């Protein structure tokens, strides 16, 4: 099937307006007869469910957690971008568009990104109206800060808990629709298959995780807002339950997977402390507003940070990228940290860490506070004490989190940080309307591939999730459903529902019957190790080929030797995990295949074979200016389709932050 991205004609800045003016509408009486299924209740899913419920559609929302409020968007720390230009620093819709395309290393679709920039301002308005308590200035207006890859201050935030506050806003809007009877909530439910009838998505098979029962649910359309797949690496900043299962089932039912190899490794995470580690914790990018990153100039320097004098420190980001300094994009910052550690300059017991140091910021803020008090020549102690208060107000919860995990006080000594898997730019391929290659099946938020190209800028994930849910899907879904108003609800004893449920049941029975010797967790760790070593921060052809072979072997082992205790009739968290890990294994293979195919470096995808003399990522626009959209054929067998990226506005150049 040829890919049609359905980008509207016309001027870039007019496309979305024109689309909205001309897309089909569904009248209120008809909306009441149309059912929409939404899988996932993070920012994208909850905002979509609330908005579609308000519009009058009958919505069924599903999440695997015990409450919609726990979706992993809750953990986003730093902020949300919007082109408001409240700081009068020259920001505009165009600049946000420009920064996002450039930050994505020219691998995102222009029209989608422009739309994202256009609606960004509405998101902030909507959230404030809902009562999201963003940070404010003393004059009562909203406060902003800087994030990586930009030279303006456009990030709105609520301390280090922006995702939490935005999700609570969307969750409350969703609960209101539940109370009004417009949305039915299915918590502790996992989607285990898509049901297709006459080529269209018409429902899902879900497992009630408490009773263990399989359920059939009909929908005129199905929306996947099921998040990203970073947990394929086992260790990531994702929540333990974050998984690819919903997206993967859709993929196996005909939805192409876009750019699976584009993974974001976040530069500032708390380093791994041992084999027991179950997840990694992020230290927000916002810390790079004030923290300076450095390593000792001497290799294998074991002195304490405070014993290393200023002129023996290498502030390598400031040195290499003077224009952006510590605020280079994530992919650049991560690679630079890896480069220093690999070269023997890492710190801490593992030597796989760099310092993130707040001493200078504490002193600077302290002096400002002293000035405010009229003390223009303060003692250093006093400045430091007051400066700590300022830093505490800005980042207190992050500093506390750091101390709880490491037992070290970051007000007194620099944090030790290292890159970790954080986000996946790749995802289900969607067109301009967010529809996948399966008619009636949509993907929103991190689950789709569309807006971030090969690297996502900080504070853009929250923006995209809410843009998709509040401001895009409410329009685009009407354009499809308007032709579906005559379709009556299909009874779930339809043969396609019966068949899909049987397949899910067979797979569960098969998993339960293996009764092998190795736990799901242990196999997941092994998968993660292969992925991190061979499809992680740096990739090469040989490693990727090896990884594919190893993953295929692991898949066989999994299906013959996994051990799942208990039974399938009732709550069984090991079975839930096994269902997810089985899908991660298949996905891992596709990621390596995609990474192998893309013989260029771009954004978060770094092929060692393709770098500049200075070790920066080197794109190959001649050969790879396309989106890889993979069609599932059979186990280990995919067909590659290419969506060419035609840049109308931007002129792709070697990305530079120097």
């Amino acid at each position, binding site marked *: 099937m040829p890919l049609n991205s359905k980008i509207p004609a016309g001027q870039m800045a007019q496309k979305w307006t024109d689309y909205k003016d001309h897309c089909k509408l569904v009248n209120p009486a008809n909306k009441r007869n149309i059912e929409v299924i939404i899988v996932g209740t993070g920012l994208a899913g909850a905002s979509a469910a609330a908005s579609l419920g308000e519009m009058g559609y009958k919505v069924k929302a599903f999440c695997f957690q015990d409450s919609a409020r726990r979706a992993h968007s809750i953990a986003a720390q730093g902020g949300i971008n919007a082109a408001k230009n409240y700081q009068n620093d020259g920001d505009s819709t165009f600049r946000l568009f420009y920064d996002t395309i450039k930050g994505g290393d020219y691998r995102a679709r222009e029209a989608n990104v422009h739309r994202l920039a256009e609606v960004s301002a509405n998101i902030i308005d909507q959230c404030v109206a809902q009562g999201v308590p963003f940070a404010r*200035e003393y004059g009562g207006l909203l406060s902003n800060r800087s994030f990586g890859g930009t030279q303006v201050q456009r990030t709105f935030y609520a301390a280090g808990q922006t995702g939490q506050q935005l999700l609570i806003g969307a969750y409350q809007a969703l609960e209101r629709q539940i109370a009004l009877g417009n949305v039915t909530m299915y918590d502790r439910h996992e989607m285990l298959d898509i049901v297709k009838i006459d080529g269209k998505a018409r429902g899902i098979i879900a497992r009630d995780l408490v009773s263990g029962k399989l359920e059939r649910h009909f929908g005129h359309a199905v929306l996947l807002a099921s998040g990203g797949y970073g947990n394929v690496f086992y260790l990531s900043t994702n929540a333990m339950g974050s998984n690819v299962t919903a997206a993967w089932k859709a993929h196996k039912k005909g939805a192409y997977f876009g750019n699976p190899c584009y993974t974001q490794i976040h530069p500032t995470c708390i380093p791994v402390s041992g084999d027991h580690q179950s997840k990694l914790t992020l230290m927000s990018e916002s810390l790079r507003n004030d923290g300076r990153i450095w390593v000792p100039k001497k290799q294998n320097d074991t002195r304490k940070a405070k014993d290393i004098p200023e002129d023996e420190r290498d502030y390598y980001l400031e040195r290499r990228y003077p224009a952006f300094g510590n605020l280079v994009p994530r992919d650049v910052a991560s690679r630079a940290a890896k480069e220093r550690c690999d070269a023997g300059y890492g710190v801490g017991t593992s030597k796989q860490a760099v310092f993130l140091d707040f001493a200078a910021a504490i002193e600077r803020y302290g002096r400002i506070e002293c000035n405010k008090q009229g003390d223009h020549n303060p003692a250093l102690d006093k400045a430091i004490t007051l400066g700590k208060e300022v830093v505490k107000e800005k980042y207190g919860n992050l500093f506390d989190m750091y101390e709880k995990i490491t037992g070290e006080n970051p007000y007194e000594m620099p944090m030790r940080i290292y890159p970790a898997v954080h986000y996946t730019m790749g995802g289900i391929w969607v067109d301009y309307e967010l529809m996948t290659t399966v008619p009636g099946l949509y993907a929103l938020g991190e689950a789709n591939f569309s807006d971030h190209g090969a690297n996502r800028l900080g504070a853009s994930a929250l923006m995209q999730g809410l843009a998709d849910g509040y401001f895009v899907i409410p329009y685009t879904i009407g354009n499809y459903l308007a032709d579906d108003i005559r379709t009556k609800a299909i009874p779930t004893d339809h043969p396609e529902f019966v068949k899909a449920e049987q397949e899910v049941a067979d797979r569960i029975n098969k998993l339960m019957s293996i009764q092998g010797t190795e736990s799901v967790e242990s196999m997941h760790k092994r998968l993660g190790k292969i992925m991190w070593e061979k499809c992680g921060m740096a990739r090469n052809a040989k490693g990727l080929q090896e990884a594919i072979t190893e993953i295929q072997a692991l898949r066989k082992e999994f299906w013959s030797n996994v051990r799942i205790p208990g039974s399938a009739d009732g709550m069984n968290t090991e079975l839930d995990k096994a269902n997810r890990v089985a899908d991660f294994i298949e996905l891992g293979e596709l990621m390596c295949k995609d990474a192998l195919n893309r013989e260029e470096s771009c954004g978060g995808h770094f092929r060692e074979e393709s770098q500049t003399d200075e070790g920066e990522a080197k794109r190959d626009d001649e050969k790879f200016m396309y989106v890889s959209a993979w069609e599932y054929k059979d186990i280990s067998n995919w067909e590659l389709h290419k969506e060419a990226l035609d840049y109308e506005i931007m002129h792709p150049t070697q990305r530079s932050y120097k």
Partner: protein
Amino acid sequence: MEHYNMNLTLKVWRQKNAQDKGGFETYQVKDISSEMSFLEMFDVLNEQLINEGKEPITFDHDCREGICGACSMHINGQAHGPWAQTTTCQLHMRAYKDGDTIVVEPWRAKAFPVIKDLMVDRRAFDRIIQAGGYISVDTGNAQDANNLPINKDKADESFAAAACIGCGACVASCKNSSAMLFLSAKVAHLALLPQGEPERMSRVTNMVDQMDKEGFGSCTNTEACEAECPKGISVQNIRRLNSEYIRSVFSGDDK
């Protein structure tokens, strides 16, 4: 920070399902590193149980960074264990020493029935939110955000209340199983903002009614909730809720 290893005795509540009576089982774990989180110690125990062919212990958890509110263990009689303002997932094993015995139970409250082992059903909280824990504004109706300046101190106070993660430790720590801290945090979050003003009266009465219906107990001001709350939600919010409630009941405003 010096790291060390420890051996521990764990007494853990096991319960097959809501109907089962349940009881404690005792387990030994060895070579637990002080660097592990409390849940990672449970991962080790579960791996051990699986290898012995037994069923692992079911517990709620997801983000493992103290923000989703899923984790919920009652540890040696304290919700989320011994560290102040810390969720179970952020509690680390350096809080314990070699040879310790640790007793782990689920949240105990009539409104939070046990699903399995340490996992409970907290959907009563969602229903309390459904009763009024929101501002009724449909998508697409908002004015420019900066048209509504909000006093910074009020905004900060509202944020501090909105930081509640809905974990239920307040209920589990209260001898009456009251949900007042949770409820008051939501009421305060919204009442402190001008956007919350139009529904201020009806919100508080509807939410309190729902709380009563769910079978949570009443508040007798013992303040155990505040002491155990991992997010430092203040009992000041309960005082605010009481005055909001009185104001609502006596104003005769439409509900």
